[in-house]
């Protein structure tokens, strides 16, 4: 079973929930937030990494400067001069259209390193795998896709914030989605959007409220919106302290175990 932890709004507690859920359920943790992979801060162990590539075009010698590549490129990544073709690999989205449609078959795919996948071993056990995107890359999606390919069948996925491609790509891998929200107008606003996205992906989902107790009736509002609240992390100083020290919320073990049980029943 794969459980994705997403939120819409950033900073609501995705990583907090994902790390604790992984620890107390025994499901391996995957950090798909490859633009800012920070779940690793909770782990100290040995890291082993491997590169991730994506294909970009390279122009061969039999190019006759016809310009088809430039015309089909939707991202303006190819320029045709009088005497040569210039490719901007950092702008290229690896769609392959220029290579496929080149009448002279003058273009070929070459690998461009766009990031890495890192396994973190604690006492020889691979508890976390995170991805990391190279600075300047256009999209985290290819790194997320590479991680999905080799993912085990039981996993907790720490998703990127927002509701755009990286989040969608991450959530698509899951059997169940936990949306983490905090009791604020901003979080509730984005939670509704995230819920719409997850519904349209036809994924079962529930809400975990972080900082429960802040003066905002999130629970009642969730009820009105038809959103099921599956768990709560109380708004308490000790949790903030533990989080800032990279410690697990041992006193909430039962809460996370019950979330895990509830997900198992629903999937």
């Amino acid at each position: 079973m794969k459980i994705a932890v997403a939120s819409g709004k950033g900073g609501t507690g995705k990583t907090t929930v994902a790390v604790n859920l992984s620890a107390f359920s025994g499901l391996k943790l995957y950090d798909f937030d490859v633009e800012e992979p920070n779940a690793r801060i909770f782990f100290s162990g040995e890291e082993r990494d491997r590169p991730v590539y994506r294909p970009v075009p390279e122009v061969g010698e039999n190019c006759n400067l016809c310009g088809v590549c430039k015309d089909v490129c939707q991202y303006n990544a190819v320029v045709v001069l009088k005497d040569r073709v210039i490719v901007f690999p950092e702008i290229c989205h690896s769609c392959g259209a220029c290579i496929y449609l080149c009448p002279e078959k003058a273009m070929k795919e070459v690998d461009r390193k766009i990031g890495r996948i890192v396994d973190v071993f604690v006492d020889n056990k691979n508890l976390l795998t995170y991805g990391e995107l190279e600075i300047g890359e256009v999209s985290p999606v290819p790194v997320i896709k590479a991680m999905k390919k080799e993912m085990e069948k039981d996993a907790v996925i720490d998703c990127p914030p927002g509701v755009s491609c990286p989040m969608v790509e991450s959530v698509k891998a899951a059997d169940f989605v936990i949306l983490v929200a905090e009791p604020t107008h901003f979080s509730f606003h984005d939670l509704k959007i995230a819920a719409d996205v997850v519904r349209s992906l036809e994924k079962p989902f529930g809400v975990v409220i972080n900082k429960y107790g802040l003066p905002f009736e999130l629970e009642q509002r969730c009820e009105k919106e038809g959103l099921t609240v599956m768990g709560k992390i109380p708004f308490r100083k000790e949790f903030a302290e533990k989080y800032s020290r990279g410690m697990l919320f041992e006193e909430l073990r039962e809460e996370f175990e019950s979330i895990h049980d509830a997900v198992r029943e629903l999937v």
Partner: protein
Amino acid sequence: MKIAASTAKGGLDDVVIEIFGRAPCFTIVEVDGGSIKDVEVVENENARASGGAGIAAAQLLIDKGVSCVLTGNLGPNAYNVLSSAGIKVYEASGMTVKEAVERMLRGELGGIAPSGGGGRGMGRGMGRGMGRGMGKGMGRRF
């Protein structure tokens, strides 16, 4: 010789604007023997492109057979494409197109260095430099 100026509406009396890749249009002035022979206004279809607008604008001007560009600021990608094609770029923002062309012909205009990440070739990491350099809220729309 064809000279292109980045403009908002186009025409000899319009003003050369500071932006290049996302300029609404280019006024292309054909000059022969030191005098203006023809004026063409070309819409810049890539002004609203999600990325690579400067590259596409440079391609447009290359395809139009332009040999000089009058503008204010341009990013390193656009600059590299233009200079690879042998096109010279001059600073002329704020002048009318007519004035800018005349001053260019008299050799009174200075060249432009690409904003942000200048001189670093075509490697990666230049996107950020672009936003910083263009200033005035023009580079960061996406």
